[in-house]
Structures are given as C-alpha cells and as structure tokens.
C-alpha cells in the first residue's frame, strides 16, 4: 500500500527506436482512451533527444500537445522473465476517443498499475491462499481449487443451487465475464447471482429499457453535435473526462448550450456556467419533479416535436401489441404494475403529466430547492422552435447521480422528456448514459429467474436480492469475484456485521493442515447455517479477502493477458498482454475453468483467452457490442479473433460489427437507433446490408429502431408517488443534512487498485473527505481541514426477503408498516472541505473510501420497481472531531474549490 509521501522526480527515460510498440486502452473509466505501450529490455539503451533517436520521432524538449513522458509513465516490468522498461502513454495517433493523446490523471498514471515489487503494487496477490488457523497461508492451485470445488458441490447438493452465491464484476473483460456467467448461470444455475453494483441482477436504467433506449446508443462525437445538451446527475468533466474535453468542450465553444442537473458545482459545471450554460442545482432525489415540470412546460407551450411523436411513439394499440406472447411477457409489462407507467400514447401521457400537481413548475422548484426560472429556461433551450420554425437539436445524457437517486421514475421521466423533444435516434439528438466502468460483460448463461424466491405483487418473480438473501442466512457459499461486495453495497456496516456473524464467528474454522479435515470443517460451517467465502481478486481486499475469505485466488489482469472489451460508444479493442502476470496469478477465465472442471462441469477446456472469446462471440450476436463477425472475418483470413482485433489497434471497431462478404471489410456501427440510416444508401452498401443481412450477419431491432416490441418508443408515466413516501421520510430532520456521495476525476472507476497505490493520487486524496457548504459548516463550527464524523441513526434496512402479495407491498411506507425495515446506526469520519461548490443543506462525500465507505450511510432499501439501490440517497448529521494535520501542513490534499474558473 502506498503512503501519501510523494516526491516528484525530475527525469524520465524516452523510449528508444528499438522499443517494441503495442496498443491497449486504459483499464479504468468507460471512455477507454487508447494507449501505446513502448517496451524495451533494461540495459538496451534509452532513447535520445533527437527525433531520430527516440521511438516517438519527436525532438525533445517537445512542445504542447506533442509526445512526452512524465516520470510516472515509466515502469519496469518482467517480460518473459527478463526486466523490461515500459513507457505507457496516450496514443497520439488514435483517430477516436482521445485524439491528440488526451488523457485523464487516472490513465496518465496507468504505467504505475503494472506489478513492480519496488512500487506500492508490491502487495499484489501472487499465490493462492487458504485461511488456516486464522491466517491466510500460501497453498497450491491444486489444493485451493479442490477444496473450493468439494465444498461448493456439497453446498449445492445439500442446500440447493441458490445457496451458492456469486457476486462478480460485470465489466472486467469479455473473456472473464463470459466464463464467470457460464459457470454461475448455466452450470451452477443459481438465482443467487449478481454484479458488483447492484444487489440483484437487474437493469441499471429501467426507464430506458422500457422506453426502448439502449444505454450506449450514441457515439462520443454525438455528445458534441446538439444545439442543447442536457446532462443529468454527473459532471462529465469529472467522470467522463475525455468525452468532455474532446467533444463537449469544443462544442460549447461552438455555441452548444448545456443544462446540468447536479447538486454540486465542479470544474465542468463551473466552465459550463462561465460559458453561459445553466446549472440546475437541485436537492438529491428531486430530479423526477424537475424533469417532469420541464416536460409539462414544453407541452403547455406546444413546443413538442409532433412529427416525431406521431411517427415514433407507440399508440394505445401498439403499446398493447406484441409478437407471439406479446408485450405481456416483457419485463416492461410485468414491471409496469398494471397501468402505473403504461400510457395509451403520447397524448395520454400529455394528459397525465399536465394533471399531476407535483409537476407544476412552482411546486417542483420548491421541493427541489431551485429557482423556478431555471425550469422555464431549460424547457425553452430544449424545445422552443427557432425563429424560422426549425427545431433545436437536443441530446440528453444521464449518469449515476440521476439514476441512483430514484431509479425507475427518474429514468422513466427522462425518457419521456427526450421523446417529447424528438430526442433519440438522430445525429445531434441522442439519449443515453455517459457510463461508468467499461463494457466488458458477455453473458454465457441466462439468469434463472424462476428459481428466485423473491416475488413482486402480481405474478412475476424478481431477480433475487443477494444482500437480503445473505442477510437472512441463505447464502452458504459466497463466491466473490473482483468486488469488495460489502463496501460497494448500501448500508454496508450492517452487511459487514452479518458477514462477521456468518463467517468469522461460526465455530467451524480451518484448524488443520489435513485436506480432508479442512474440507469437513468448511462443509460443517455451511451445514450449521454459516457461510464459506472464496474470493478472486488482484489485491487482498479488506474485509472480503483479508478478513472473510477462506480461500483466495490470485487473478491476473490488464496487460497480463490478451483481453477484449468495449467502451461507452461500443468501441471494441484488444487490450494486449505486454508483461508477465506476477507469480502464480491467473486470469479469472482460467480460474473459473479449473474450478468448473473440478466441479464436474463440461465445456471449460479453453487453452487461452482467444479460445474463450471465440466461444463467446456467437452469444454476442444481436447485442450492442456484437463481435461475432470479427471472428468470421478472422477465420476467413486464417487468423484468430484476437489477432484480427489487434489489427484495429487503439481505433478498434464499434459494435455491432458487420462483415461485408463482398468487400471483405469489417464495418462498425456508429450509433444505435439510427432512424436516418436508411436514407444513407452508401453506408448501407458499405455495411453489406443493401439486400438485407448476409451470411452470419444479424440486424437487431435497435440498430435502426427502438428496442420495444414494435420498434417504436413507449412513452411512460413517472409517478412521484412511488418514491415520495421514502423521500419525505428520509428528508433531513433536526440537525440532519442530505447525504449525497459520488466520485471525482482523480479517482473514477479506478478506486479498485489505483487510489491506494499511486503516491500522487494518495497525496491528493489521502483520506476520506466530505464537502460541506460554508453556511452549514459555520453553524457547526467546522472549517476546511477539520476531521469530522458523519453519523446517522436513520439508516433504513430491509431485513428479509420479501414476497409481495397485494398491490403496494414493496412500497416503502408499506414495508415500514409491516415491520420489514430496521433502523440502524452508522458513522464514518472524513476530512471536511468547506466550499460553496456544494448546495446548502447537502453533504457531498467520496463514494467509496475502502476504509470508511460512505455507503454505510446510504439507505439499504431498493427501488421498489427495479430492485436497484438508490446509492445517492441518505441523510446524516455531522460534527467536528478536531483539526486534522492537513489543516496545517502543505504536502498533501488541497482545499481549493473545484469550481475556480
């Protein structure tokens, strides 16, 4: 682990002409900038200052925007067991994403990610470990896998497949997620399965899905081609850095108007305001009201895009229609709880939104704590026809601040607003998520929903809430892959107490070196109502690995294996292996394949990651990142899938990928829902689709239409009442403040290994922190640099797995009334940053400091329709504990506000 002791260096080697060059992309955020890796043996000579003497072909000192190597961009790694220099820098030659070699701080420092025992990466897991006599001790792969498989099998046979819980990353490369899901869903066939960021396997944006919008339909360049861009629940400068600097920022200079919904003013928001944009500084959880009020004002003024609505929105009959079993068998209808969301078309929606008192502008503005003029202003920018009668082009992007604060209704509301504005499916008029982590999921099995014991009212079963299932003691074997589970879920201190009870405090612990006795004691733990934990990761995480895991499998990762992944515009790249994985660390697909074989499952005989990718490809067909045709082209050329993708370098290719059998060309898809593509005959011809899809090509509905039963958009209602009882109950009482949390540019989708192991990042953010408005701080005697405690005795927690029988059983007030909810306490400490950049009455804290996760203060209660946590919703009191050292020393942290422009 790193300390915050950072000493800047004043030199860095230049890669020599003889350096080998490989391409990859950044491991962290969804944007996935392209990088080049320059590798040359230690002692073989570094590059010189003249262009002819270095691999960049640039004279040094170089000028602005030219190649350069910062000291932190150099590292020494083992390649084929020989020490090699690597310089890892943004690719100056890439045609997409980070053109000009732009990069964030996270990517800029990524050379430091490589394992090097001389750096803070020295604690990488390098060998399987087993907790014997309370201490994690090295064991062989054979022993670790055998014990895990024998206990796992025992649990499935004696307690059922749902006792085998799998909690896994959803993104860490296509090969790994395919292997994990094939194992967990197809073979173990457990409903006790979910991904790192949600307690149950559900969609992140139910409103998008039900409207028919793909989360990642737009291309990055689309974000800069609107007249008005609305951004909800994020500052892309902080968390989609390069989309902002390469696409949104230049567009703002060209005159694009930007509207941002965010309780906090960060650098991007400040820049937008400086350039004349609109900041809607609403209170947490009130987006639905504000968006609804904007929509209503647009309709009242008659500014809607009537042509679009007539052509592309489902009417009453279409809304009820469907092929085969029809709409009644779609998640949309099942979740719709019989008319709560469904409309008979846009005029019906108009009637509804105009009759709901909560969407009156004055009311919405009052609850949201904003100036009502901002609602009218936003409506005007988004929809008021131009003087010549032409329509403004409006695009809408959302992210977690928005959809993790009233998951279903917010995403419904924004889908409807988009549709009213004619947004979605045309250049300059797109709607989507900006994204979080990269898109590396490829399912190798389908979720066995019918095995889930959780059921909402009506007939439909819902994906199992694995947190509550575990909390109730039903998970006997927890298989945790690349996630902390505990910190990353809401009400995490309650979950941690439960883990302690089920794992550490169970009397059946390994107190023997004898294999059979080890297996017997773990089986006895499971049989006695306790829980066995196995954990795959690159570092030993505390507490899941360090305190709870009985067996730890060391994983190999970025740069240590050839992997495929897509980014937030569906751009697929090969992330090349360029150095040896440390010790005995193995990629997750390999670990899973070995475990699966021990469990007696067939179909896991892969020799390398390309084998996995080639098997996975056919399951990608029809999906947004369909890459099957790359394999078809590769095989036609006598190559492997990975070899073919490597040829695309950092440019990659956007899914769904088509293969033109005539020209032998692979052609990517610029945007989904591309309703105007049919008019572009040349593009259709290039795709090889002029006579329909040929050979193995598949055209899915979302390619040129929307993802609903008819290919048109479902316009939906978004009742505040589903959420308002919770919002009102939660609203700050007495001395409480809203507790909001999120991430920052310096630590965004990189916290899993970056923040703790980059001295510079550690120096900038050495401890947990919280932003507080100067008025709130003054009242409590808090100054910047003070150590404070945030605490609450109103952390709500659903106690058990709930069966809904009557309508409304999943509604918060109903759960409360029926005794399904506990009130728990939680507290975390942090360093205070007093800044007017956060809204008065709102605290904004770091989302996950591993030592003290803010999620502990989040309500452990899921959206009653979708099953997602609303991570951003909490309340807290705050008090000063004393002055921290950062108040009086200058070496680390900074209390300067982020909105200085």
């Amino acid at each position, binding site marked *: 682990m790193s300390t915050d002791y950072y*000493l*800047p*260096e*004043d*030199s*860095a*080697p*230049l890669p020599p002409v003889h350096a080998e060059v490989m391409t990859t992309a950044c491991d962290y955020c969804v944007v996935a900038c392209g990088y080049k890796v320059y590798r040359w043996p230690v002692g073989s000579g570094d590059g010189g*200052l003249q262009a002819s003497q270095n691999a960049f072909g640039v004279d*040094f*000192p*170089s*000028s*602005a*925007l*030219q190649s*350069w*190597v*910062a*000291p*932190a*961009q150099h590292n020494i790694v083992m390649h084929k067991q020989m020490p090699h220099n690597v310089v890892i820098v943004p690719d100056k030659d890439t045609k997409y994403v980070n053109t*000009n*070699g*732009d*990069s*964030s*701080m996270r990517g*800029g*420092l990524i050379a430091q990610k490589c394992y090097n025992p001389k750096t803070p990466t020295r604690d990488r897991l390098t060998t399987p470990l087993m907790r014997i006599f309370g201490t994690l001790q090295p064991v062989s792969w054979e022993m670790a896998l055998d014990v895990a498989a024998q206990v796992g099998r025992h649990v499935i046979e004696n307690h059922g497949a749902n006792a085998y819980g799998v909690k896994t990353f959803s993104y860490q490369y296509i090969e790994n997620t395919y292997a994990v899901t094939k194992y967990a869903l197809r073979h173990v066939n457990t409903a006790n399965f979910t991904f790192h960021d949600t307690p149950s396997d559900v969609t992140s944006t139910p409103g998008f899905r039900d409207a028919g919008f793909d989360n990642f339909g737009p291309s990055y360049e689309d974000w800069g081609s609107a007249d008005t861009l609305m951004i909800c629940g994020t500052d892309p*400068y*902080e968390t989609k*850095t390069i989309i902002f*600097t390469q696409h949104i*920022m230049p567009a703002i200079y060209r005159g694009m108007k930007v509207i941002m919904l965010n309780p906090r003013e*960060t*650098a*991007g928001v400040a*820049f937008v305001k400086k350039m004349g944009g609109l900041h809607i500084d609403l209170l947490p959880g009130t987006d639905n009201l504000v968006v609804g009020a904007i929509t209503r004002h647009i309709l009242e003024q008659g500014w809607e895009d009537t042509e679009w609505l007539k052509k592309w929105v489902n009417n009453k009959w279409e809304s009820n229609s469907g092929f085969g079993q029809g709409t009644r068998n779609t998640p949309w209808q099942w979740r719709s709880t019989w008319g709560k969301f469904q409309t008979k078309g846009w005029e019906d929606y108009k009637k509804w939104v105009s009759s709901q008192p909560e969407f009156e502008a004055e009311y919405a503005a009052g609850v949201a704590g904003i100036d009502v003029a901002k609602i009218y202003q936003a409506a005007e920018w988004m929809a008021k026809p131009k003087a010549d009668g032409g329509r403004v082009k409006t695009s809408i992007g959302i992210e977690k601040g928005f959809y993790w604060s009233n998951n279903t209704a917010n995403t419904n509301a924004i889908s409807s607003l988009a549709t009213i504005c004619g947004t979605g499916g045309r250049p300059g008029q797109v709607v989507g998520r900006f994204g979080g982590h990269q898109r590396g999921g490829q399912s190798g099995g389908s979720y066995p929903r019918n095995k889930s014991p959780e059921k909402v009212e009506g007939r439909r079963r819902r994906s199992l809430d694995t947190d509550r299932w575990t909390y109730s003691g039903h998970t006997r074997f927890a298989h945790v892959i690349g996630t902390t589970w505990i910190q990353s879920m809401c009400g995490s201190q309650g979950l941690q107490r439960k883990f302690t009870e089920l794992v550490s405090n169970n009397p059946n612990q390994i107190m023997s070196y004898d294999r059979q006795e080890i297996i017997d004691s773990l089986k006895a733990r499971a049989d006695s109502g306790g829980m066995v934990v196995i954990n795959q990761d690159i570092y030993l995480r505390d507490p899941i690995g360090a305190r709870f895991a009985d067996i730890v499998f060391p994983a190999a990762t970025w740069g240590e294996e050839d992997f495929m992944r897509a980014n937030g515009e569906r751009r697929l790249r090969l992330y090349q292996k360029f150095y040896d994985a440390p010790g005995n660390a193995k990629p997750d697909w390999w670990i899973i394949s070995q475990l699966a074989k021990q469990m007696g499952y067939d179909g896991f005989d892969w020799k390398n990651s390309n084998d996995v990718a080639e098997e996975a490809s056919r399951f990608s067909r029809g999906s947004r990142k369909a890459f099957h045709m790359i394999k078809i082209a590769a095989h036609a050329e006598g190559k492997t899938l990975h070899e073919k993708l490597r040829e695309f370098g950092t440019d990659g290719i956007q899914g769904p990928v088509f293969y033109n059998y005539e020209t032998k060309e692979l052609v990517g898809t610029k945007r989904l829902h591309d309703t105007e593509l049919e008019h572009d005959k040349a593009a259709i011809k290039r795709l090889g689709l002029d006579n329909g899809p040929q050979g193995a090509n598949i055209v899915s509905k979302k390619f040129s239409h929307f993802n609903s039963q008819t290919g048109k958009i479902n316009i939906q209602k978004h009742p505040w009442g589903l959420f308002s009882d919770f919002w009102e109950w939660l609203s700050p009482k007495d001395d409480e403040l809203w507790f909001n949390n999120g991430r*920052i*540019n*310096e630590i965004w989708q990189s916290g899993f290994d970056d923040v703790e192991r980059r001295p*510079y990042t550690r*120096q*900038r953010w050495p401890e947990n922190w919280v932003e507080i408005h100067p008025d709130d701080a003054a009242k409590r005697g808090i100054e910047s640099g003070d150590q404070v405690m945030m605490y609450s005795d109103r952390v709500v927690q659903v106690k058990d797995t709930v069966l809904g029988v009557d309508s409304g059983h999943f509604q918060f007030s109903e759960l409360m009334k029926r005794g399904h909810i506990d009130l728990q306490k939680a507290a975390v400490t942090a360093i205070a940053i007093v800044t007017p950049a956060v809204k008065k009455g709102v605290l904004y804290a770091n989302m996950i400091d591993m030592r003290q996760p803010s999620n502990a203060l989040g309500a452990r209660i899921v959206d009653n329709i979708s099953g997602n946590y609303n991570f951003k919703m909490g309340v807290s009191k705050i008090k000063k504990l004393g002055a921290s050292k950062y108040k*009086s*020393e*200058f*070496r*680390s*942290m*900074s*209390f*300067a*506000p*982020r909105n*200085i*422009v």
Partner: protein
Amino acid sequence: MSIFSKLKDQTKDKDSAEEHGKCMLSRRNFLMYGSASLAAASTVTVTLFPGTAQAEQMKARVVGYPRKLVAKLSEMKDHQPIAFNYPDDGPNSQAMIVKMAGVQAGGGVGAARDIVAFNYLCTHQGGPLVGSYKATGEHRTLGQCPLHLSTFDLRRHGIIVSGQAYQSLPQVLLEVDGDEVYAVGMMGLIFGRNSNMSS
C-alpha cells in the same frame, strides 16, 4: 547532525517552521536524488531562514541546477506574478514567481513564506498557464489551463486541484539572500523535457 534535525532543533513555531522543515526535507531529498544521475556538482550558499533568529548559512550540494537571481523582495507586489526562465533559457523553461499577499505556502520564502515560484506549463499536455493566477479567498491557484482545464494549488507545492495532469506543477526552489530571491532548484519534471537540465 543532519540538516533536517538541525532545522528541527532550531525551530519553535510549530505551524510554520516545522512545515517549512518538511518542505526542506523534500528539497534535500530532491537535491540528493539529483546527484545520482548528474555528474557536475557545484556548491552554493543556501539561506534557509533569512532575517530571522533561526537564520543559518550552510553549505548544501545543489547538483546541476544553476543559482539564478529571479526577483527582489522590495520590488515584489502582492498577486503580481513575475515571469522568468528556469533552469535555462531553452524550450519550456517559462516560470513565474509570485507573492501571495501573506498567505503561507509550502516551500514559500520571505517573511510570510508567501513567495513561491512554479514552471508555467501545465504538466498534462503543456498548455500555457500564463495569466491564470487567481486568489480566491484563502486559496491561491494557477489555472484553468486553456487546453483541458487543469487547476493547481500554489499553496500546496502545485498539487492538482482538479483536472487531468498526473503530476504537480514543477515547483522552483527559492532562497532569499537579503533583498534578493534566487531560484536554486526544481521539484518535478518540466513538461516536454526528459530531464530538467537537458534542453
């Protein structure tokens, strides 16, 4: 006795002098680090606490970096950065020195330790930070960089406040001799160079 422990012995004011000492520790490490890779060494006089009871003259090895007169205390005005080149007049050596109106800073010199100097190029992609000095309340920053909006905290050794750069702004190490302020070294690599002393 090391320079650092000597310093500690002789400093009384916890909030300021110990802080100053920490900066000097960094600086000393920095100077020693430099000696490993550069052959030419020179010896200069370093004045750590000019004009105070703790003032002490000592010999320190400053390796490779020139000692250059960059400003006069009597001529410096609050919030008015003065441009100079350091460590040479080659490409990318543009730097600034500024007196920050009594707000103390890490590595600051002068009676109020409010005088600091930094290279003027953003460490992200070399954007010019000229003209971006700002005083906001008690905060002192350079930025936003016109290229990608990075901002740096001048009170805290040029650390990134918000933005894309992956190292602090290179800080020019200063010493004061009477009325004269000298640049004597640098912490951090200047954008575009592979070594601060090669241009």
